[in-house]
Structure formats: C-alpha cells, structure tokens
C-alpha cells in the first residue's frame, strides 16, 4: 500500500484549511500543517498558552525564549496577533470560537470517540494537557495520524480501548492511507491515497469503512 510521509500528510490536510480560519494545531506533528497551507490563504493559529497569530519559526539570532507555542517550540508573531492569559485562552477553546483543531490520536472510533492522551501503559504518569478542552469546544476536529500502529494493529476502531479524550468529537481523520469522515453511520471514505484501494485500507481497519456517498 502507498503510505504518505508525515510531511505529505500535513500537506494534504493543509489543503482543507480555508482562508480566514482560526485554527489550533495540536502538539507534535499537527504543527507542521501550517507550513503547507497555500500562501494566498490567511489563517490565524491559536496556541493554548495564550496567543492567536502564531507565526513561523524565528530565524537564527532572533529567537525570544518567552515566545513559544503549545509544543514549546520557539515562534514568531503573525500580523493581527493578540496575547492573552490562560483562562481566556481556554474560554476561546471551550467557547466554540476556534473553527478547526488538528490533533494526533492513539485511537479513533467509528462513533467519533477520540483517545489521544493516555494508553493502558501506566509506566509514565498521566498527562492530559489541553486536548479535552479542544475537543468539547471546537466544532471541527481533524485527526491526523498513522492509519495503523507500528505493530500493524488498527487505530480506527469500533470502540476505543484506551481512555477517552472526548465522546463523539472527531469529524474527519487524515491518515497516511486515506481520508475518512465520521458520520452518524460510521466512517465514510472521502479519498484514498493515490494507489490504494478501499479493500486494502479496510483490511487494516477494524471499523467498517463506508464507500463515498
């Protein structure tokens, strides 16, 4: 099967970020999406630690150690930006003001349940961060992840087995193999990575994938 690289996946997802959107990019790989949004679209990025208007990584010598995003990466400030404190930042998240959030995931279920903060592996202390606030507040939740785990086990499931981040919150899943919508009937195929067949993708997916409607 044809598998997109992380960068190709970020570029694919970026096409679906419309001009004028307010977007929150989750920590880790989702932060790469902004590099691929077409230059003629003006998108304002929110970061939970108190900014709307996250700009690109600073050039060397112009870093400001107190200017960071939720991934703790150094950032610059885009035109039209604003700073605010944490209670206000999460009011923005929870209150439905952000248009789209892009998150990583361990598991997504066909009912839209998301598991992205804890596994059953209890070796490490639990850590939740801001994901639970994003998923209840942002009307459009995009998940961006590998279609299967490293051991080949599925991540798109009938029901999540890991602790949930939110119930019925995911709208669309972008994987290296396909793009799928979460519908009242379950996962529905939006598009396949060029070269893949629905049968191939279904074979590595626990949940049923409906054909495009």
């Amino acid at each position, binding site marked *: 099967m044809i598998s997109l690289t992380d960068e190709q996946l970020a570029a694919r997802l970026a096409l679906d970020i419309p001009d004028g959107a307010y977007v929150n990019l989750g920590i880790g790989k989702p932060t790469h999406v902004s590099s691929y949004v077409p230059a003629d679209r003006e998108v304002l990025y929110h970061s939970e630690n108190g900014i709307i208007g996250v700009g690109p990584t600073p050039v060397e010598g112009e870093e400001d150690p107190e200017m960071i995003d939720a991934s703790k990466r150094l950032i610059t400030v885009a035109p039209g930006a604003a700073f605010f404190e944490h209670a206000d930042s999460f009011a923005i998240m929870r209150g439905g003001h952000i248009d789209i959030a892009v998150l990583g995931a361990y598991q997504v279920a066909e009912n839209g349940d998301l598991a992205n903060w804890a596994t059953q592996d209890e070796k490490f202390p639990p850590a*939740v*961060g801001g994901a639970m606030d994003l998923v209840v507040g942002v009307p459009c939740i995009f998940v961006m992840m590998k279609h299967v785990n490293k051991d080949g086990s599925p991540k798109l499931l009938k029901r999540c087995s890991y602790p949930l981040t939110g119930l019925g919150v995911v709208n669309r899943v972008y994987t290296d193999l396909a793009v799928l919508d979460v519908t009242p009937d379950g996962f529905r195929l939006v598009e396949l990575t060029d070269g893949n067949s629905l049968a191939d993708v279904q074979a590595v997916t626990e949940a049923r994938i409906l054909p495009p409607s």
Partner: protein
Amino acid sequence: MDKRIATLEEAVAPIQDGASVMIGGFGNSGVPFGLIDALIAKRARNLTIISNNAGAGDFGLGLLLREGLVSKFICSYPRSRGSVWFEKAYAAGEIALEIIPQGTLAERIRAAGAGLGGFLTPTGFGTRLAEGKETRVIDGKGYVFELPLSADFALIRAERGDRWGNLSYHGTARNFNPVMATAARHSIAEVRELSETPLDPERVVSPGIFIDHVVEYGVRP
C-alpha cells in the same frame, strides 16, 4: 502603598512547610525562576505545587522536585521532555499527583479568584478524569461540576511592575500568571523591570489589587 520588596529571599520568607503554592509558567516561559530558586534555598518542605508542567532538567520546578521539597503536584501535563525528577518521584510513590485538564485547571483557579462556588464544564465529560465527579446534562450536552482551586501563595512572573503591584507581561509568558495572581491568599510577583513610574492603566494586565509583593529579577531565561 508600596508593595516593592528588596530581595527574592524576603519575598518568599512567609512560605512555610506544608504550604500550597501556585507557580506561573508554561514550559520555561513565564516561570518565576528567581522566586523558585529562593524557595529552594529556603527549603520549605512538604509543599503542594500547582503549576501546568512539572519542570524539565535540573532547574526551576525540576530542581524543586529533585530536592524532595514537594509532596503533591496539581497540574495538567507533568510529562514534558526532561521531566525526569517528577517521573522519578512519581515512580517511587514519593509524590501525589492530581491531573486536571488544562482549561479546567485555569478555570478552577479563576473561580477561586472570582469568588464563585464552582462551575459546569463540558471538558472531560464521559472520560476517566470525570470519574466520581458530579455531572449534569443540559440541552443534551454533558457537563462536569468542578470546584474552585485556591492556594496559600502564588509565585508570578511578569515583565514590568510598579509599586502598586500592577503588572504587564511579555508575549506568551503571560499564560497562567494573571489568573494565579487572583487565587492565592498571598501573591508574590517577580518582574524583569520595576518601573519608577506607574504603569499605563490601559496596559495593566494584572491590577495590583491581586499582588501583595513585587520584587525585581532582571534575568530573562
């Protein structure tokens, strides 16, 4: 009215063993490193720390944890890269952990500062972090009831301050600092620059009414 205090040492002097202490910051941004160092030097023990992260490396919160001065940590995300001292203490069962979704943490602190008795948030509804908590469904949406969270002390990092305790901030170093300043019985601010003249009242982010003492600490991380 003059809330200025000369040294970090004097600023943290009231913090005793067993105190609960809110500490501003997110990652290494907006962390009151000067006040934390003074707190470590004072060796107050058995502290309950309320802060978003659990430090990284051998400085700041990491050092406070390494020195064994913390018995309980209340936070949203203790697992940043380099949070080794927290992980060690947690694995050894030497530290209690209360994990709270980040927005609920901020909002519980705000509720304490704003004199509210609690609130309903949709965050965490139906998840493990809502287990045992009161819930309610309103217009088909599930909510979790959360209580206010206050502390004995708050350690705040700001950019500029004046003798009235008014504070302004710098970039994303604002984060938890303004809200924590409202929720402690005694709030201490470390500022990069103490202004001789009053801050512009339009630019004040934390009105001085929330601040008990302000001390200059010019180092920027």
